[in-house]
C-alpha cells in the first residue's frame, strides 16, 4: 500500500500561511531576541505580516476562477478542506484590515506612562512586590503579538473551512489565544483574570456542543465535507433525528461565538474584563469570522433543510435584538454597554442572515451581511479605541458617570465618540445606517418582513441608550474631578482616524464596498 502525499495549493492559501508563519516566527522571536528589542521586533513583524497577508489576499482575489454558472468563483483547496471563494476572500480582507488597526492598539505605549496595556508579568500576583518590580523595570508581555496572529489565522480559517473537522479546529485556533489575551490586562487584573476564566469555561463548554453536533451530522451523512452533507440533506437519506439534533447543537456552538442570545451571557463580562485593545480586536474580528462560518455552514451544508432551522434562527434573532437593546439601557460601564450593543448588532446580522434572499432583485442576504460586518467592524474598533483614551489615576475610567461632561473637557474626543455611537444607532449618513438598510432590505425581499418590522422597532430602542451616553457627555456636569483624556501616540490616532473615515465613507458612499460584496458572489459548493 503506497502513501499518497496530499496536494496543497500553497499559492492560493498564501494569505493564511503567511499569518500562521508570522505567528510561529513570533514565538521564535520570543525565545531568541533580547528583551529590550522584542517590543519593536514583534510589533513590526506583526504589522509587516498582516500587510503581506493583505497583499496576498488581494492577489488571490483577482485570481479566482469562475465555476459553473458564474454565480460563484474560487476553488476548493487542500484536499477539500478549505474553500477559497469570493466570500472567503472578502472576509479575509476585512479581517486583515481590522487586525492591522487593532495591532496598532496593542502596540500603544503612550497612554499609561510608557507601558503597554498588557501585564508586565502575568505570573506575578496582583498587588505584590513582584508585580511592582515588573512594572518599574518596564517589563511587558510581547507574546501578545504571536497570540494575536494565531487568533487571526484561526479567524481566517474558520469561515473558509469546507469541512466540519477543519471548522472545529479553526474554532479552537481562534479561541485559545483569545482566552489567554483576555487575562493579560495590566490594570484591574482580577477582573481580567476572571474574564479569561469565564470566557474559557463557557467557550470550552460551547465547543463541546459544537463537536457533538459535528458527530451527529457525520452520523447522518457519513462525511464531514460540506458538499457531501448538502447532498445527504437534499436527498434526506439517513435519520432525521440525527440531522436535526446535529444542526441544533452546531448552532449552539456557532451562536455562542457570535454572541447571540441566549448564548450571549459571556459577552458583557469578557468585554469588560479584557484589556480594551483585546476587546476591540475580539469584538470586531471574532464576530466577522463566526458570521462567515455560520453563513457558509447553513447556506452550503444545511441549505436544503432551511424549513427546519429558519424558525429557530427567527426566535434567536428576535431574542438577541431584544436582550441587547434592553439590557444595554441599564448598564453603568461603557465597555459593558458596548458589549450589549454588540449583542444587538449580532441580532441585526441574524435578521440579514435569515432573510435567505438569493439576490436577483436587490441585494442578496450574503452580500448584505458581509457589508454589515465591514461597517460594524470599523465602528467597533474605533469606539473601543476612544474608550482607551478616557483615563484617571486607576487606568481607564470606564464607569459611565466618569464620562459626564466629557464634551466640555475634550470636545474632539467626545465628538468622535458621539459619532461612533450615532453610527451604531444607525443614524443616516453613517455606515450604521447603510449597513442596517442593507440587511433589512434584503431580509424584507426574502419574505422575512415581520422580522424586519420587529428589528426596526428594536433599533429605535437601541438608539435610546446610545443617545443617553451622548446626552451624558454633552449636557451633564462632571462628577468630582473630571477624567483626563490621555494624549495618544500616532498609533491609536491612526486607528481612530481609520475607523472614523471608514464609518463616514461607508455612510455616504457605500457603493464600492457593496459592489465588492456583490462581486464576492455566492459560496462555492
Amino acid at each position: 500500500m503506497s502513501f499518497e502525499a496530499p496536494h496543497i495549493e500553497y499559492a492560493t492559501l498564501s494569505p493564511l500561511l503567511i499569518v500562521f508563519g508570522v505567528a510561529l516566527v513570533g514565538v521564535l522571536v520570543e525565545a531568541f531576541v533580547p528583551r529590550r528589542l522584542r517590543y519593536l521586533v514583534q510589533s513590526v513583524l506583526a504589522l509587516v505580516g498582516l500587510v503581506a497577508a493583505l497583499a496576498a489576499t488581494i492577489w488571490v482575489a483577482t485570481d479566482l476562477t469562475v465555476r459553473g454558472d458564474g454565480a460563484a468563483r474560487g476553488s476548493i483547496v487542500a484536499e477539500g478542506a478549505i474553500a477559497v471563494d469570493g466570500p472567503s476572500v472578502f472576509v479575509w480582507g476585512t479581517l486583515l484590515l481590522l487586525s492591522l488597526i487593532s495591532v496598532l492598539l496593542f502596540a500603544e505605549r503612550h497612554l499609561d506612562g510608557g507601558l503597554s496595556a498588557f501585564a508586565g508579568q502575568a505570573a506575578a500576583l496582583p498587588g505584590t512586590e513582584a508585580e511592582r518590580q515588573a512594572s518599574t523595570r518596564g517589563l511587558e508581555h510581547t507574546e501578545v503579538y504571536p497570540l494575536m496572529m494565531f487568533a487571526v489565522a484561526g479567524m481566517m480559517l474558520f469561515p473558509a473551512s469546507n469541512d466540519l473537522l477543519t471548522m472545529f479546529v479553526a474554532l479552537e485556533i481562534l479561541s485559545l489565544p483569545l482566552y489567554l489575551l483576555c487575562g493579560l490586562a495590566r490594570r484591574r487584573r482580577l477582573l481580567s483574570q476572571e474574564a479569561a476564566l469565564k470566557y474559557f469555561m463557557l467557550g470550552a463548554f460551547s465547543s463541546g456542543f459544537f463537536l457533538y453536533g459535528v458527530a451527529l451530522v457525520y452520523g447522518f451523512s457519513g462525511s464531514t465535507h460540506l458538499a457531501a452533507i448538502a447532498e445527504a440533506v437534499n436527498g434526506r437519506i439517513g435519520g432525521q433525528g440525527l440531522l436535526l439534533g446535529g444542526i441544533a447543537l452546531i448552532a449552539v456552538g456557532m451562536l455562542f461565538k457570535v454572541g447571540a442570545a441566549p448564548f450571549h451571557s459571556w459577552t458583557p463580562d469578557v468585554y469588560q474584563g479584557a484589556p480594551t485593545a483585546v476587546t476591540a480586536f475580539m469584538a470586531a474580528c471574532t464576530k466577522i469570522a463566526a458570521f462567515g462560518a455560520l453563513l457558509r455552514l447553513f447556506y452550503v451544508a444545511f441549505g436544503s433543510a432551511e424549513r427546519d432551522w429558519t424558525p429557530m434562527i427567527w426566535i434567536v434573532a428576535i431574542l438577541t435584538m431584544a436582550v441587547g437593546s434592553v439590557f444595554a439601557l441599564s448598564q453603568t460601564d461603557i465597555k459593558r454597554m458596548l458589549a450589549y450593543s454588540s449583542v444587538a448588532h449580532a441580532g441585526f446580522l441574524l435578521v440579514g442572515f435569515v432573510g435567505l434572499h438569493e439576490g436577483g432583485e436587490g441585494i442578496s442576504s450574503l452580500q448584505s451581511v458581509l457589508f454589515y460586518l465591514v461597517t460594524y467592524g470599523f465602528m467597533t474598533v474605533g469606539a473601543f479605541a476612544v474608550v482607551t483614551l478616557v483615563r484617571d489615576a486607576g487606568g481607564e475610567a470606564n464607569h459611565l458617570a466618569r464620562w459626564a461632561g466629557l464634551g466640555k473637557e475634550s470636545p474632539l474626543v467626545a465628538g468622535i465618540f458621539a459619532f461612533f455611537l450615532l453610527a451604531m444607532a444607525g443614524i443616516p449618513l453613517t455606515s450604521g445606517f447603510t449597513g442596517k438598510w442593507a440587511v433589512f432590505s434584503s431580509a424584507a425581499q426574502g419574505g422575512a418582513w415581520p422580522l424586519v418590522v420587529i428589528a426596526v422597532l428594536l433599533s429605535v430602542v437601541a438608539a435610546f441608550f446610545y443617545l443617553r451616553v451622548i446626552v451624558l457627555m454633552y449636557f451633564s456636569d462632571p462628577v468630582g474631578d473630571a477624567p483626563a483624556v490621555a494624549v495618544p501616540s500616532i498609533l491609536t490616532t491612526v486607528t481612530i482616524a481609520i475607523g472614523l473615515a471608514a464609518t463616514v465613507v461607508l455612510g455616504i458612499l457605500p457603493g464600492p464596498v457593496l459592489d465588492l460584496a456583490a462581486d464576492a458572489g455566492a459560496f462555492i459548493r
Partner: protein
Amino acid sequence: MEAEPFIVLSAILFTIGGVGVLTRRNAIVVFMCVELMLNACNLALVTFARVHGNLDGQVAAFFVMVVAAAEVVVGLAIIMTIFRTRRSASVDDASLLKY
C-alpha cells in the same frame, strides 16, 4: 455491529458532562466535565465511522484529542493564575463582573 448502544452511551456521557459543568463549583472539576463531553463526542465519532465504513470519524477523533490537549494547557494555565490570586478554584468566587 449494533451501533445504537454506543451512541446511547455517548449521549449519556455527554449529558453527565453537561450537567457536571452546570452544577459543579470547582473549576478543575468543571473543566474535567468539559473533557468528558469531548470524549463522548469521540465515542460518537468512532461509532459512526464504523457504521458508515469510512475513516473520517476516526481521523476526527484524533484531531479532537489533540485539540483537547491544547485546551488543557490553556485552561489549566488560566485556572492556576486564578487559584494563585484568589486561593480558591471555585467558579462561584469569581464574581466581580456582573450585571
